[in-house]
Every structure is written in structure tokens, then in C-alpha cells.
């Protein structure tokens, strides 16, 4: 009798667990989709500005446009990111080609959009007032307060390409996103 009772208890427990598993396992699977890093495919390589629209020391914000998928909606053409272009001072003798640095406008701190602080000599993130110099390095705020940014602005790969039609020089940027809040730059792709 005793054996029989413990057996029945065990069976009840097992059947209950099995029933629960039918619900919970697919449930966990269903929810865990959010945890899976989203594959973005390759980074967007895009011409974002003409070199002659850039002047040394005057950063220009440009938009990167691409298709974006948001769950069930495909946006074929949207602004997917913003990039700050900073043209380096030209060589005095003009011997070297001009150099342009590209930084993503996404703040490495918490992801707000970095803006140019008036009158334009430095970058600032409006959320927590993290400041950056024009080379993207975090700089101390007023009163020597340490910057909130865990690292400098994230620099993007950037090269100058010449248009085959009119011979204009364009800035081509490889746009990527990076993890926020880390001291090192880790790509989200």
C-alpha cells in the first residue's frame, strides 16, 4: 500500500512536470528570441559627403541611410545612423591628400546623439554632458570634471573615393554600431 501511494505521488509529479514542460519550454524558447543578438548583415558602406563640402576644423554631421527591419516592418530607406565628419587641417605644402576622420554620433556612454557644442570647437552629449574634443577623445568638463564617457567617440572606417563621372572626391564611411558603456569599442554586429 505504502509503495503504491509513493508511486502514485511520483507519477502525479512526473505528469504534472511533463504538462508544465509543454508550456514552459516553448514559452522560454519564445521569449529567448529577444536575447539572441540580431544579425544585421554586413556594415553599411556609404558615400556620405563630398570632400569639398568639408572644411578643416568644421565638423559636419551627415546621415547614413539604409534599409532597416523592425520586427514585422521593413523600412526600405531610413536614416539608420548619423556620423560626424572632421576634416583634418590640410598640409601647408599640399603634398599629402586631405584626411577626414569619421565618428559615429552615438554616444559611447548611453547612446544619446552627440552634438556639436557651440561655437563648434568640441562635441558634447546633451544627456550627461560628456564632452569630446574634435579628435573624438573624451575631455574634462567645466571645472575639470571627468567625462562621463567610458571611452572616446567611436571612430568609423572612412576613406576618400573619387567619383568616376565628375572626378569629385567623396567621403565613404563604413557605418557600424558599438556596445555602450564599455571602456573598449566592441562592435554590435
Amino acid at each position, binding site marked *: 500500500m505504502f509503495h503504491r501511494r509513493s508511486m502514485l505521488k511520483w507519477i502525479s509529479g512526473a505528469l504534472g512536470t511533463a504538462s508544465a514542460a509543454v508550456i514552459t519550454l516553448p514559452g522560454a524558447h519564445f521569449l529567448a528570441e*529577444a*536575447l539572441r543578438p*540580431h544579425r544585421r548583415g554586413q556594415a553599411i558602406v556609404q558615400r556620405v559627403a563630398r570632400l569639398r563640402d568639408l572644411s578643416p576644423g568644421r565638423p559636419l554631421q551627415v546621415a547614413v541611410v539604409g534599409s532597416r527591419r523592425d520586427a514585422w516592418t521593413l523600412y526600405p*530607406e531610413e536614416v539608420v545612423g548619423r556620423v560626424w565628419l572632421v576634416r583634418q587641417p590640410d598640409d601647408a605644402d599640399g603634398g599629402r591628400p586631405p584626411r577626414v576622420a569619421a565618428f559615429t554620433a552615438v554616444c559611447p556612454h*548611453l547612446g544619446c*546623439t552627440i552634438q556639436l557644442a557651440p561655437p563648434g570647437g568640441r562635441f558634447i552629449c*546633451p544627456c550627461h554632458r560628456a564632452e569630446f574634443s574634435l579628435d573624438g577623445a573624451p575631455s574634462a568638463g567645466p571645472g575639470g570634471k571627468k567625462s562621463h564617457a567610458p571611452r572616446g567617440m567611436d571612430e568609423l572606417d572612412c576613406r576618400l573615393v573619387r567619383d568616376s563621372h565628375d572626378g569629385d572626391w567623396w567621403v565613404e564611411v563604413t557605418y557600424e554600431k558599438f556596445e555602450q558603456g564599455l571602456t573598449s569599442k566592441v562592435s554590435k554586429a
Partner: protein
Amino acid sequence: MIGGFLDWLDARTDYRALLAPLRCRVLLNGPSWWFTSASCLLWVFVIQLVTGLLLMTKYSPSTTSAWASVHFIEQSPSGAFVRGLHYFASHLLILLFVVHVVRVLLSGAFRPPRELIWITGLLLMPLVIAWAVTGNPLSASQKGTAQIEVEANILGSTPLVGSALRRLLLGGDDVGHLTLTHLYFLHVALLPLLGIVLLAVHLHQVYRHGLTTVIRLPFMALGKPSGHARPYWPYQSVRNATVLVVLVSALAALAWRWGAPLEAPADPNLTIQPRPEWYFRSLFELRRYFTGEWEFVATLVLPLALLTFFIAIPLFDRVCPPKLGLTARLFVVAAGLGVWGWLTWNSYARDWRDPEYLAAQDKAAGWARRARLLADRGRIPPEGAAALLRGDPKVQGPLLFARHCASCHSHADPRGEGIVAAEPSAPNLFGFGTPDWIEGMLDPRAIGGANYFGHTKFADGDMASHVREWFADVSGDDAAELRAQARQVARALAAEAALPARRDADLREPEAIAGGAALLTDELGCTDCHKFHDQGELGSAPDLTGYGSREWLMGMIADPQGERFYGPERNDRMPSFAKGSDANGSDANGSDANRSDANRSDANGSDQAGYNLLHQRELELLVDWLRGDWVEHAPEPNDP
């Protein structure tokens, strides 16, 4: 009749015996105003449940529909009031929570055997906060979206599990449809379930152990129990109801007068300076003191440590002498409120002193008004409310102008307000196409000045020389007569522009316009160089036919080197912004997609559109803004 029914019900359910502990509760020391916080908290919670359920009937969580559905709620009968109640009650809930915790702490109501009441109550605090955090972004407004982005990233900076928590909250890597469905699930399902469970344990414990009756602080004398035993109902209940009715009246007044805010729909193109709600301002301020890798101390460790400390207070109390314990608790309350208040005040004070922040808030408020005005006209398209501002010249114009034009042109009124070019090298376009602006062009002192051709190669060109010659040898009445003629010509040209703001003025004085046109073609000889309708020739100066009209401006910006405008030789430095565009070809939903256009067509091969700096749609928005051509009125009645 009713009594009979209740007897019948009681015979079957025994509900009177079940409710007896409630009905027959006795307060040994009598009722107190200090006990009202618990009851009020409970009823505000109920208000949240009821208004929340009502709002659920019309809310739709997705990035395309969330803002639109919230705006629809605002337009529904009593919708703004119900949403306002829900909004203000959420703030009141947090406020009452603090009051209640202070009351319980000071009256020592956490002592054995009431530890579980204390713990479940404290655990409800983060829950209520999470409730607010998940609720604020549901409107998919600029502010709410920016807040949840930052909050998710704060969560993401938690060591080890941060990234997983962040993804669970957002439903993926970025804010999108799934963020709203996840937040909605948390806000209306999971958190209420958890809350009700915690609340059930909390209330069960309250009934099991009764209310604390000891209140011995001198300054609590106002609501001090009389010391005579009284039943809870109605002696305490009437006090509860009195405070509740005051609070509900305040809620109703706030909801009626102001309602819940609705900022502009979120759009990554319109950047704002997001700030947390008031209850997070202290943490926001605190993190100023913890930078870099120590930031999670402010955002995670300290709040959790504080919660743990409060939960452990019954333990500390046990080892503390009673007199010292009371002093310690008073100190905790005073220090807690003091530090909280100081941090909060500092944070607000810093923002109020920051003109950039205030300007950004003004701008965001303007976008919000604009979005609501456009939405009021029932024009939210299928792609969602964000399209309202993306297709609005008044909002997009200044952004496009700043991005594409302001390296040379200013757009600033006579007081210098507006968009001022860093190094102006072309005319100030404020008021372009108005009689005043054109008159300045015909003024010998102005045409070579900074607002017109001063910084261009036309400063001493044919046009400027002509204007100076006209006025060179005249004086007195003749000069006045000449100025009047210039004014008339300006009127005639402004009629060509047909700016919306000038429509009525132009209709009123057709003779003046005809007179100006006659002067232009005959007496003043403008058509010696310019074409004007069937007079004059193209090739030496810009066409004055339709000068400043939408079509003229679009052509001018698209290709100033075109024959109709300055031509390839005479053009100064103005680039062609849309040389390859065909007038009606492009689709109308691009916001600033020009560059992708450039790249795509470039990759395709030999499409002239590859050199477009402005998308067709952007060109239209820019021109409509320059011409002041945008929707500016209250809703049209019965507008479909």
C-alpha cells in the same frame, strides 16, 4: 429587498463571517490621520487599475500606431481626462509611497510580527517604479523613447547580466515594435500580477496583525490617536475618505486643467535633450559623481543597497535601544529626504540655468504642438505619426536649411534671430519673395550689403550697378518717386511669388501689381536683361517670370547654373542641389535620403541623379518652408 438578497447570499457564501475581521476591526488607541496614507495608496492603486484598463481599449503598441492611438485617446470623449488621471495618479502613487514608508518607519510599524508587511511593502516600491518606467514610453513620444533608450542602456551596464536584461526589456537590440510590445506586456500584465500578489500578502498580513497603535512622536500630535478604542469603521474610514477625496480632487483638477503631456512622435532625425522624471532626478544627479566604470555604483549598487538597508531595518531595530532607535529612524528620514531633495534640486537648478537645455526644451515643445496640430487634422498616414513631422515644411525646413544652405546663406530676421550662417557668403533669405525683400534688392544701399549681394561676385555686378545708377543723380522728390516705383515693382514681383501670406494682399490690389509689372517692362527697363513673361530674353539674368514661386525656387535650387537662372558662367558659387531630378519623379517619403540616392544611382552606373544633394521631397520641403507654405491653422471642422 436588498437586505433579503444579502441574507440569501450570506446563507450560501458566509461572506459576513469572512468580512467580519474588516467590519469589526477596533483601533485600540483610536483613529489617526497618520493611518490614512495606507488607504489612500490602495485607492490610488485601484484608480490606476481602472483607468489603465480603460486606456487599454484604445491603445495600440507598435512604433507606427502607439503615438497615433494615444493621440486618438486624447481626442476621445473624456479620453484626455482618463489619461490625465492615469498620468498624475502614477506620480501620486510614488509620492504617497514615500509618505507611507516614512509614516511606517517613524511609527515603528515594521516591528515583529509585522516584518512581512514591511518587506512586501518595500518590494512594491521598485515595482511601482518599474511600472512608471514601462508606462512612460508607451506613447512612443520623443521623450519616452529617449528615456527608455537610456534606461535600457543603464540596465545594460550591469555587470554580467546587463546585456541580456537590456535585450529582454527592449525586445532586441534597438527600440522598435517589440520594445513597445514588451513594455506593454510588463506594464499591463506581468507587473500588475506581481503587484497584486505582493499586495495580497501585504494586506493579508495587515489584517492578521492589525494596525500599529503606537505613535509617540511629539510632532505627530496633530493626527495623534485619542487613546480611546474605536472601531475602524467608520471612525478611521471617514478620515481615510476625507484625505482621499482631497487627493482625487487634486488629480481631477490636474487632469482637467493640464492633462497628460504628449510630446512629438519619436524620430531619430529630431534630437532632443532627454531628462528623467522627477523621481529619478536624484539618481541622475548622483551619477555625475560616479563616472566611467564606476557609474553602475550610482545606478545599481546604491539603489539596491538602500533597498536592502530598509528591508533590514527590523533587524537593526532589534539590537538598538528604543530611545536611540527612534533617533536613528528620525535621522534616516531626515537624511534621506535631505539628500534626495538636495540632489533633485541641484539637477533641476543646473538645467534651469542652462540656456541650451531650455532652448532644446522649447524646440521640443514646438515640435509637440506641431505634431498635435497636424494630427488634429486627422492626417496620420498609414506609416505612422512620425511621418507627420517628416513631411512638415515648418519642422523640416530649418533643419534642411541649416544642413544644406547655412554654410553660405543666413535666414535671420532684422533682429538677427533665426539661422545665421557662420560665414555668410550669399544673401539672407529671410522673407525671400516678399515685397520688402525684393525692395531691398532695388535699394542702392542694400543691394551691395551683407543681406543681399555683399559677399558675392554680384556685389559690383550689372544688377547692383544699375540700381546705383538709377538713384545716382536723383534727389528729393525724384528720389522719393523712384523709391515708390521700386516699391511697385517689388509688389509686382511678389505677386509672381504668390506667397501664401500675401494671397489676400495681392487679391486686394490688382492695379498696383499691374502698374508694377508695367514699370518693370517699360520705364525701368528690367526686361533689357531679365525675361518677364513674354518680354525680354533668357541668357543674361535670371528669369523673373514666376519669380519666387514654388516652381521657380525649386528650379533655382535644383540647378542655378541652368539657363533660366544664372547659367554656367554667371553663377557664383551656389551648387546644383538636384540637377538630375525630374520634377515629379521621386516618391514622397524621403526625409534626408539624398545621399543614399547618390550612392545607389552611382553604383547603378550613369544616372545624373547621382549628384543630387537634395532629394525631390526634401527640395519641396525646403522650398515650402522658405515660402512660408505650411499648414498653420486649427483643425478644420469635419476634415476627413
